[in-house]
């Protein structure tokens, strides 16, 4: 079925002898949003790094649109249609806002996202396009990071800690824009500390605990207690 964008089978990742991910499997189709929850150190960021090719799995396989990622370098994986909004935004500090966005489109995949389209969603970025990216406020920087990821016209978007370090009102604004951003049949994985918010915007969720999946299913299918137990391992 070509609708499957991401498929992960029995993935294990180690840092030296320390196991960060222990036999995870999941799959994601076009237009779906999956939220990935779990405490610090549960392996969420490692999973993102594995998908992007920044760490090599020890066992298991990741496929994107039917193409196995084994042995591919991060740049090649980006060309296949994977983009990430990294934790802490990590904008290029010596590049202007516009240069950050243009660099996001370095791989030139065809699709709806252009500089103009990003600016139409985040008009403030057009006003500030010649400023150094790091001169912007936290929320605006997050907009640049999201825009930068979209500029490659990805099929799979990884959002790591969207609300980290942002003021509540800014977080609300960004989440309000999410449906508009994700409307094009993108498959998305969202990592978010705010579990309630994550579950409220996603179709499915996966809860990770010490490197493995402790609970997964539809986002509205479990009680708060069940999710809490899976989250803390109690």
């Amino acid at each position, binding site marked *: 079925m070509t609708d499957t964008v991401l498929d992960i089978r029995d993935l294990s990742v180690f840092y030296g002898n320390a196991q960060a991910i222990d036999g995870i499997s999941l799959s994601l189709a076009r237009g779906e949003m999956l939220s990935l929850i779990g405490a610090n150190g549960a392996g969420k960021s490692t999973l993102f790094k594995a998908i*992007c*090719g*920044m760490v090599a799995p020890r066992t298991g396989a990741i496929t994107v649109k039917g193409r196995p990622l084994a042995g591919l*370098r*991060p*740049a090649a*994986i*980006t*060309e296949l249609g*994977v*983009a*990430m909004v*990294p934790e802490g935004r*990590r904008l*290029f*500090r*010596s*590049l202007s806002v516009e*240069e950050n966005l*243009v*660099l*996001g489109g*370095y*791989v030139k995949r065809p699709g709806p996202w252009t500089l103009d389209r990003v600016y139409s969603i985040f008009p403030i970025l057009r006003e500030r396009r010649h400023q150094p990216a790091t001169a912007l406020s936290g929320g605006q920087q997050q907009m640049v990071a999201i825009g*930068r990821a979209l500029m*490659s016209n990805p099929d799979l978007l990884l959002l790591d800690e969207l609300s980290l370090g942002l003021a509540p009102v800014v977080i609300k604004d960004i989440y309000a824009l999410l449906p508009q951003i994700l409307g094009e049949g993108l498959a998305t994985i969202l990592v978010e500390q705010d579990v309630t918010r994550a579950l409220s915007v996603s179709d499915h969720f996966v809860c990770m605990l010490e490197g493995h999946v402790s609970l997964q299913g539809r986002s509205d299918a479990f009680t708060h207690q069940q999710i809490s137990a899976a989250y803390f391992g109690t």
Partner: protein
Amino acid sequence: MDWINVIIQGVLIGGLYALFAAGLSLIFGVMRLVNISHGDFIVGAAYVAFAVIQMTGLHPLVSLVIVVPLFALLGYALQLGLLNRVLGGDILPPLIVTFGLSIIVQNGLLTLFTADSRRLDAGAIEVESLNLMPGVDIGYMPLMTFVSAVAIIAGLQFLFYRTTMGRAFRATSDDGEIAQIMGLDNRKVFGWAMGLAMAVVAVAGVFLAIRANFDPFMGPSRLIFGFEAVIIGGLGNLWGTLAGGIILGVAQGIGAHIDPGWQLLAGHIAFLAILAVRPRGLFPRVD
């Protein structure tokens, strides 16, 4: 008049030192690599130009058409074949590898070309000069070297801040990991940077070889001049590097004017003095 002449000649040679420095500055900016063999490759370029001229009879300046692309390719290959494999957190491996390269290039040149000193003959242009005022003559060759240095630095500056490649350089330098997930292959980005640096090295080598005699072992001191220009000017600032080269050239000129034995010493002392009072150089990049 004497002193004006000393300073003007110092400024002009400063352009050559800035050329020695530009490649060093570029690769440090992009990949935090300090290439100990940089000076030896400058001398290597002089020898390659020498060989090309022997074979083809080209004018030294025309030989650049062959030597520059050759060195750009060499730089790219060196980066992908060797240097990328030792870049990482630890500074020792790249240092030792480029140190080893330095010894290999020196002794390779010695084996191929003997220890005899050589010179590239640029013909009449070498002796022609512009009479600025009584006692102050500006040689066409030093002037051309200086103008080329300014043009190359302006070009690098444009490339760094106005082109896709420059954007890739800056992004990779800022955050190599994230640059990779934007689709930039950092191995290749580093390869381009080294290729570009080696193209500048080739120009520097040919100008050096027209200006003065060269032998296989004069690379390390060219590295040191380039390094001093970089530190005097302030890390990461190309125009600062030009200023650093000029300061070094003028200091050497003044030293030599007082006593020929003090030429090099005066340059080093100027460098150490600036390091003592302005450890980040005269024009550090603000960020």
